């Protein structure tokens, strides 16, 4: 199969204006992924599905990722004058990155027996603009998985045919897979609490009502 760079170049040729970014993966798996801008997401998805060399007709897995606001360290090359000589020095600078939510699509081709190609979509933020275009129109099998992401991460998929909660009940208000999810104080009893359960126990017994 083509490399992701080649695929990216072909998408850019076919769909001018599509914002694509290659996200490398440094882990041993070495599976880079393609970040697509929301406006062109459906067009890019249809291209990947229809293209004769790719024919990615199967979305095997759709999942969500929560990226809370974080401080990232970046290495930047800065020119500095040291002892009268101008030198290039690497400096670590800290950058604040606003939080966002991500949906990740793993795509395979059943016809050509190849894959995966990994697509990422990002929301603007984690609160009021957590919207993404739904790709259910392209891959029918994404419907339930997008509902699951909506349920557990709170990403609203626009143009989804039936966006309801799927695992939790309708009146449930939280999104449990988000990193800042606060679970209800349902601690009752543990003979030997430790680690996270110990923290939970301390929080539980700290409130007067539970003493």
């Amino acid at each position: 199969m083509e490399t992701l760079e080649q695929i990216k170049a072909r998408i850019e040729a076919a769909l001018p204006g599509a914002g694509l970014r290659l996200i490398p993966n440094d882990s041993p798996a070495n599976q880079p992924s393609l970040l697509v801008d929301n406006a062109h997401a459906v067009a890019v998805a249809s291209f990947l599905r229809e293209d004769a060399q790719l024919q990615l007709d199967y979305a095997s897995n759709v999942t969500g990722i929560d990226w809370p606001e974080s401080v990232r360290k970046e290495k930047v090359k800065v020119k500095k004058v040291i002892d009268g000589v101008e030198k290039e020095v690497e400096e670590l600078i800290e950058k604040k990155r606003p939080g966002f939510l991500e949906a990740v699509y793993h795509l395979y081709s059943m016809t050509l027996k190849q894959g995966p190609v990994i697509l990422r979509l990002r929301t603007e933020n984690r609160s009021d603009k957590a919207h993404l275009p739904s790709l259910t129109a392209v891959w029918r099998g994404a419907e339930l998985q997008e509902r699951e992401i909506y349920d557990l991460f709170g990403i609203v998929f626009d143009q989804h045919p039936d966006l309801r909660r799927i695992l939790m009940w309708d009146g449930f208000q939280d999104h449990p897979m988000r990193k800042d999810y606060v679970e209800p104080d349902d601690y009752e009893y543990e003979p030997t609490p430790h680690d996270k359960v110990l923290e939970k126990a301390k929080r539980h017994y700290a409130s007067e009502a539970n003493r």
Partner: protein
Amino acid sequence: MDEGLRSELSKQGIFTITLEGLYNWGRRSSVWPLNFGLACCAIEMISASMARFDLARFGAEVFRPTPRQADLMIVAGTVTKKMAPQVVRLYNQMPEPKYVIAMGACAISGGPFKQGYNVLKGIDRYLPVDVHIPGCPPRPEALIHALMTLQHKIDGQRLAGPDRPRHLRAEAPSEFVIPRFGAHDLEPPQHPDVWQPPAVIRGES
């Protein structure tokens, strides 16, 4: 009746039994379970009812698909918070006398999912459980042992007196509160008449 006299009479072909004994013998020999499973424990339950382990030896092979005909609810598997109201509702629809066996780590305590956001920490928060079976999942022998334990329990029940079982006491509840779906958790998180968290006695140190 004197045990020696009963033995002597049986040698003459006269069998005697108390009404209580007959009543309990009849009930314990035809405990019909409700036909429902929630997770992998159900596979072991099915296995226990098939030829190799043969639950029919104990009169409990007739799995009823309707709660109206069932005597025993085997809670076989993880009870999620979304499923809990339906489980309690099924129990409420069963006629008295009725029993509950909580099968497996999840049904008795939440098991490996105990501190999760979606799993009930044991069905005994809402239902009066007669026999708990630990295991993940318990082997069919364990389920058979639980059924035999339940049979012993039924055998020991009195028809009259202050310690008679729940179905013979008019004032005792036959139905239990069905939890409602709340904004963050089930409401109430447990039924206080059925279950209270055990008191933790902590040392001074």
